[in-house]
């Protein structure tokens, strides 16, 4: 027991000092941190959304949507390739049913040529030579393209990557500070935005796919057919809620439209004549020339501006628009026009995202929780500290010092890893106070017991520490098991609780066993007690 070498004392003290040092920036708060010397570590604990207020949103994409979109792109590519081939390859009877693309080559002598043209479209992007699509020719002329599983997975993966980038850009555009955007699983994205004034705006922005299309209106379509939702050949029906004619639908030509993904800029402004909010867009050079061609060839005819499958407006083309910029009108408010501009600037989402979980905490509740949590923690700590001193005297004081150091170290370690303190995490602190002293209770009770059995002072202390250590270790391993499972299965705030719990377990074993042992050893060496008050 007396054998506590100097190097051990020094290294334990250094470790403790380091832990306390790391904890200080978090305890100073934003104002105090200004006076903290910059050469010292300045990492702080993050406050969870439930404490500082903010929104946690879980977005989910449907892989089936990705597969559908991919099938459509494939159809367009196949059509383009067949048109481009010389001589042109005639195809027909195109269908996209049951997740496969099938079509007929009209002239059976062109089947080989068609196959050669399609093969480059179906190979995967990777170097493994893996195919994204399987090609089959049935009954001599019918091509069937079936997406491979690897191909679909790749597509979903790519779509989610892009979607994550798009969402990050959108949130950055909103000017919120420190958003957290992470992929979760195969088809989910978690968005956490602290301290938000208007969560509804955020949700509206995230929920918008922002797929913009320009298509020619089929003005020859029979209005009665359109009203009942039936499309003439070569056209399709889109909903048009603000249609001035009163019919909530409009027919547009399938072909000859362009998509609005080739934009370099978008911004909200006001229409010069009506003063209504509008969105100005600027195409890139490729999109600009396509748009110029579309408007040049169709002067005097209306075209539909379609956003996420819904027609915003269908203005007449009064003159060719050659400058590469255009104005989108619709039934906008300034706010919704601005939102659309942000969404268009940051690009369309490659796949629809649905909000499947949302948790928003107002800043007042968060503040209230912190205040109450601190009050409860202080009361609980003071009560436990008093209780320990009354029960174990000097040994209780040692345990208390160890407990205080323990709390500093937990804060320090959390700051070091930039861990997040959540509301259940505060409960974790209070619980750590309750259970950290358990190790000292075990040791001290054992020392009492050994004294009662007639062992000498020093021997009792020695046996007390040795025998109690075994139970302490087993008990803490079980707690760690529970903590790991909490961390693995818990979500958000519960994870925060698990983090505090696990750091607390590790550091409490260190402070409650090693550190108090050092205190006791130093005291015994100095005072050489003949009697033990415990």
């Amino acid at each position, binding site marked *: 027991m007396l054998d506590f070498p100097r190097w051990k004392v020094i290294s334990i003290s250094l470790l403790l000092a380091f832990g306390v040092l790391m904890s200080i920036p978090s305890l100073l708060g934003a104002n105090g941190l200004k006076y903290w010397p910059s050469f010292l570590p300045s990492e702080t604990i993050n406050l969870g959304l439930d404490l500082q207020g903010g929104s946690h949103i879980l977005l989910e994409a449907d892989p089936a949507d990705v597969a559908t979109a991919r099938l459509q792109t494939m159809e367009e590519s196949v059509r383009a390739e067949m048109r481009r081939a010389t001589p042109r390859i005639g195809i027909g009877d195109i269908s996209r049913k049951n997740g496969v693309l099938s079509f007929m080559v009209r002239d059976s002598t062109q089947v080989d040529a068609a196959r050669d043209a399609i093969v480059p479209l179906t190979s995967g992007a990777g170097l493994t030579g893996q195919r994204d699509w399987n090609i089959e020719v049935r009954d001599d002329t019918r091509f069937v393209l079936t997406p491979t599983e690897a191909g679909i997975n790749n597509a979903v993966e790519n779509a989610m990557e892009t979607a994550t980038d798009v969402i990050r850009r959108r949130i950055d555009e909103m000017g919120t500070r420190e958003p957290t955007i992470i992929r979760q699983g195969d088809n989910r994205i978690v968005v956490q935005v602290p301290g938000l004034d208007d969560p509804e705006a955020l949700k509206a922005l995230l929920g918008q796919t922002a797929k913009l299309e320009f298509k020619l209106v089929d003005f020859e379509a029979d209005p009665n057919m359109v009203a009942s939702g039936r499309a003439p050949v070569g056209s399709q029906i889109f909903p048009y809620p603000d249609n001035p004619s009163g019919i909530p639908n409009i027919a547009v030509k399938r072909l000859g439209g362009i998509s609005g993904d080739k934009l370099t800029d978008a911004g909200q402004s006001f229409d010069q004549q009506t003063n209504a909010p509008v969105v100005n867009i600027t195409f890139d050079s490729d999109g600009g020339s396509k748009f110029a061609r579309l408007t040049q060839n169709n002067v005097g005819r209306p075209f539909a501006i379609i956003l996420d499958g819904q027609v915003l407006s269908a203005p007449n083309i009064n003159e060719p628009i050659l400058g590469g910029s255009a104005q989108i009108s619709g039934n906008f408010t300034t706010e919704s026009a601005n939102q659309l501009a942000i969404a268009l600037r940051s690009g369309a989402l490659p796949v629809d995202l649905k909000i499947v979980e949302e948790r928003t905490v107002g800043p007042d*509740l968060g503040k209230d929780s912190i205040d109450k949590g601190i009050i409860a923690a202080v009361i609980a700590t003071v009560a436990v500290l008093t209780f320990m001193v*009354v029960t174990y005297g000097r040994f209780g004081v040692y345990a208390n010092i160890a407990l205080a150091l323990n709390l500093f170290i937990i804060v320090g370690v959390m700051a070091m890893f930039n861990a997040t303190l959540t509301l259940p995490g505060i409960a974790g602190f209070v619980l750590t106070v309750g259970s950290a002293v358990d190790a000292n*209770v075990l040791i001290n009770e054992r020392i009492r017991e050994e004294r009662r*059995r007639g062992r000498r002072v020093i021997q009792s202390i020695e046996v007390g520490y040795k025998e109690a250590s075994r139970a302490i270790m*087993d*008990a803490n391993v079980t707690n760690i098991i529970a903590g790991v*499972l909490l961390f693995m299965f818990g979500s958000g705030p519960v994870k925060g609780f698990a983090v505090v719990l696990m750091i607390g377990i590790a550091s409490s074993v260190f402070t409650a066993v090693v550190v108090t042992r050092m205190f006791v050893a130093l005291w015994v060496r100095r005072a050489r007690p003949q009697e033990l008050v415990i």
Partner: protein
Amino acid sequence: MRLLKLVPDDTNIGFLKWRNVAMAFSILTIIASIGLVAAKGLNFGVDFIGGQMIQATFTETETAPISELRDDIGALGYGEATIQRFGDANEVSIRMRLPADAESRPEAANEMTEKIVSTIRADHPDVRIDGVESVSGKVSAELFETGAYSLLFAMIAISIYIWVRFEWQFGIGSLFALVHDVALTFGLFALTQMEFNLNIVAALLTIIGYSLNDTIVVFDRVRENLKKYRKMDIIALLDMSVNETLARTVMTSLTMLIALGGLILWGPDVIFGFSVAMFFGVFVGTYSSVYMAAPILIWLKVGPDTFVPAESANDQAEKMGGPEQIG
């Protein structure tokens, strides 16, 4: 200086005398808990059944007008609202099922929130919206599943650890103690109809970890005594082990209860249920290590040969210090 001793020296309570009565009582309470859960059900939060929860504080009113809110929101046609007091008398939580078309139309949930909030605000301009939680059916089903699995895994993993560190009888003993603690906590939530949400699962997992603390301390002493006193009757030996660790059990449980009592009385409202669950869990966990875990050792025939085979017993006795050292 005279120090406080909660448990006097040489306490010798015949705990195990009552083991049959206690076991019958424990089994009855477990059955009662399961019955309560079956009959009354748990008041699941949106975490586990999906739906939407709005937390609101009426800043200028002393008591939240709960029945008025229920009528007003019911009139909106979104179905019946579950409205409960939450923390102080002027704070409420309003829980709703998600609208039927929410799965296909994501903005439906949003619209419902806005309608409810504006309805409340029309009559009570002092209302402050503290939080909105909305969980889809799919996510809630997943949370339910992972919650259930984590509880199951925790119990099994911990029992296996005890089996490895001690012996299989001890593993079974601790598993039964855990089942007891978890079942009773479920029973408490069925009885009081407090909201059962993710935080409560966290509390249950912590209870599992904590309750085992207690069991392990007793088991550790049983193992030590089994090696020391090879001739002693198992019931007397268990009684001795429980009594020897009693001071520690009382002391630690008390510090835990003090800390948790602080959280219940003064802590944040959001984790009230969590704190109550933990408080209750510490209570039943202490009981179960004495009256569930220990008696099972008797029935599973734990004896001096469990740890030390008979032939090497003599060497072992010397190493351990032997019984001649008793004060």
